[in-house]
């Protein structure tokens, strides 16, 4: 987004991308499960989206696992992301100010709503007309996909349980948009879309930016450090060639870090100099701290109305066509925890596997029939809850463990606490009440189970924005308080994680930040 918005305003931008570009023509998008196996047995491999931890390790303390998912290559995680695109509202931006936990967001919905509108129009987001305090509406949604049978039935059941659902909001083209073809509902988005029918930053932002002639991209450039000049400002960047390990430096007037939260943080912490012994712009020891993520678990059931019916093609736009927004701030009940949760609905209807069958008892003909009976009736519920920012949930670097280029790796120290466990209990209550209202047959689960930290792939908080330079790293324009020509425009900039998926907001915040930067550059102040 920074590259796109700055080049179109006349700036020359050099982008250093840690990975090799992914070629759409090599994606295994439509490969059926049995064809996938044949290809693998023949020695072929799908594009390696996920960065191998053996190439680039990270540490965690004993007993505190963190499952970090990184994609190095143009577009990063947007090549394979879940496409859930939910606006934050003032319920979120004002959250910390209301409950007093940690620092306030330095922006409000009115500051960002125009940017959400622009992002919706630029990338194409499909969704419904709903407009809630916790999920503000948009005039620019593409048509939402039709709901699946189980989603309709769950929505009805939700009424009797007092729980509302809305159309899902996804960065998927349900009609042609800005010259791109619409989605063809093959449901295989997680493998990468070979027709680019959902937003990914490579095709939607980098390609147009390159057409301006003002964007250069160096691939396989693993940035190690932001370099500082004698005046304390950023003077450029040191990077290593991923293929040859050669060390290079580039000089720049402005440096923007957007390597995804953990990698951006690691770069900044490693950017040490006599002026910045703790990492550039980090005299307040805030960089790396306040890592927030989201808690999540999975509950499955079978809708009685769909048992034994003929399986339909339930692929749609892959994943949720319906979403349960947060409601715990509105029902008047007092809670013993802060913040809230929403719920996504994936794995609804006929799936490309029958993994639920492993939890059904028995074997033989009756077992085979019971699998077939249940297969079209599957309902998957995936609640997401906000993890508070805690000072000692953090990313640090340690010179004792360096990577293949000699640069200290990240160590992620993260645990969830009482607030999250109490929220999870209500999340389970909610899931159970919906299954009861739907009269669904429940696939056995263990109450209290939470996915491993990192599984939601929504890291935030480690280079947070705020009004007070003693307690934050960036201002509301993602500009470092202490280093005016250094910006961080990824999820690390967020002071809270909320319960919502961040990508849409990252795009809006980055657009706003780079509008400010472009204006500062034109005015000669940067």
């Amino acid at each position, binding site marked *: 987004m920074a590259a796109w918005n700055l080049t179109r305003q006349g700036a020359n931008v050099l982008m250093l991308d840690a990975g090799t570009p992914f070629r759409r023509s090599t994606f295994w998008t439509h490969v059926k499960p*049995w064809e996938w196996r044949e290809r693998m047995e023949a020695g072929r491999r799908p594009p390696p989206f996920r960065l191998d931890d053996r190439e680039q390790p990270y540490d965690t303390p004993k007993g505190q696992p963190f499952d970090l998912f990184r994609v190095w290559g143009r577009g990063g995680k947007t090549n394979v992301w879940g496409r859930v695109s939910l606006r934050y509202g003032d319920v979120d931006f004002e959250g910390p100010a209301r409950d007093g936990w940690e620092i306030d967001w330095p922006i409000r919905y009115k500051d960002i709503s125009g940017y959400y509108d622009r992002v919706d129009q630029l990338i194409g987001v499909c969704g419904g007309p709903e407009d809630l305090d916790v999920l503000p509406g948009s005039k620019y949604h593409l048509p939402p996909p039709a709901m699946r049978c189980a989603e309709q039935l769950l929505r009805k059941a939700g009424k009797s349980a007092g729980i509302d659902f809305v159309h899902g909001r996804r960065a998927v083209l349900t009609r042609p948009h800005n010259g791109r073809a619409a989605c063809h509902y093959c449901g295989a988005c997680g493998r990468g879309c070979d027709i680019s029918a959902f937003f990914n930053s490579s095709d939607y932002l980098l390609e147009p930016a390159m057409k301006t002639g003002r964007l250069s991209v160096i691939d396989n450039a693993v940035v190690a450090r932001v370099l500082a000049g004698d005046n304390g400002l950023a003077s450029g960047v040191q990077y290593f060639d991923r293929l040859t390990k050669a060390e290079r430096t580039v000089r720049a007037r402005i440096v923007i870090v957007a390597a995804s939260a953990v990698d951006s943080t690691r770069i900044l912490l490693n950017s040490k100099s006599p002026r910045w012994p703790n990492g550039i712009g980090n005299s307040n020891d805030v960089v790396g701290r306040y890592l927030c993520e989201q808690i999540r678990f999975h509950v499955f059931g079978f809708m009685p*109305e769909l048992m034994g019916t*003929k399986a339909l093609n339930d692929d749609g736009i892959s994943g949720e066509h319906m979403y349960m927004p947060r409601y715990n701030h509105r029902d008047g009940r007092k809670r013993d925890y802060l913040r809230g949760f929403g719920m996504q609905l994936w794995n609804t209807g006929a*799936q*490309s596997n*029958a993994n639920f*069958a492993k939890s059904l008892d028995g074997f033989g003909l009756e077992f*085979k029939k019971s699998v077939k009976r249940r297969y*079209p009736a599957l309902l998957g519920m995936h609640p997401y809850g906000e993890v508070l920012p805690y000072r000692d949930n953090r990313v640090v670097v340690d010179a004792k463990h360096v990577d293949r280029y000699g640069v200290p790796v990240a160590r992620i120290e993260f645990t969830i606490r009482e607030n999250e466990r109490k929220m999870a209990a209500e999340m389970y209550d909610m899931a159970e009440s919906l299954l009861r209202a739907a009269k669904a047959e429940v696939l056995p689960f263990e109450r209290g189970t939470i996915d491993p930290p990192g599984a939601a792939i929504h890291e935030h908080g480690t280079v947070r924005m705020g009004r007070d330079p003693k307690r934050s790293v960036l201002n509301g324009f993602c500009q470092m308080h202490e280093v005016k020509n250094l910006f961080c425009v990824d999820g690390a900039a967020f002071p809270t994680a909320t319960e919502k998926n961040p990508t849409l907001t990252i795009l809006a915040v980055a657009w706003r930040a780079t509008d400010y930067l472009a204006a500062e550059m034109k005015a000669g102040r940067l």
Partner: protein
Amino acid sequence: MLNASEMNTLAALSDFIIPRSDTPGASDAGVHFIIDSVLAGQTERLASFRAGLRPFLKLDSAKRLERLTALHAGKDPFFRMLKDLTVEAYYSTREGLATELGWTGYTPQAEYKGCTHPEHQWKKA
């Protein structure tokens, strides 16, 4: 890799888990080959799987079923492994996923109509 006797036994056992009915069964779908392939990369798991197979090798069909039924009732770990491997493999084949269950996914479509059943529609309040 499993030997011929083990493969024949595995084919028979997988057919007890998911038999041929009006649609193909596990061995029709080549499940025993898939399991063999999966286990080839997992030394410890393969060793314990072989150990679980061994008592079945020389039994006749009726005695195999008897033993399998007893292991299932006793929540035996070998039974669990056999069932999980069979289920994962079978429902990843064309016979299992498409023919038996009716999956038609990962296929480009002109439109997505979703649920059109009148009895399923939710109504606005």
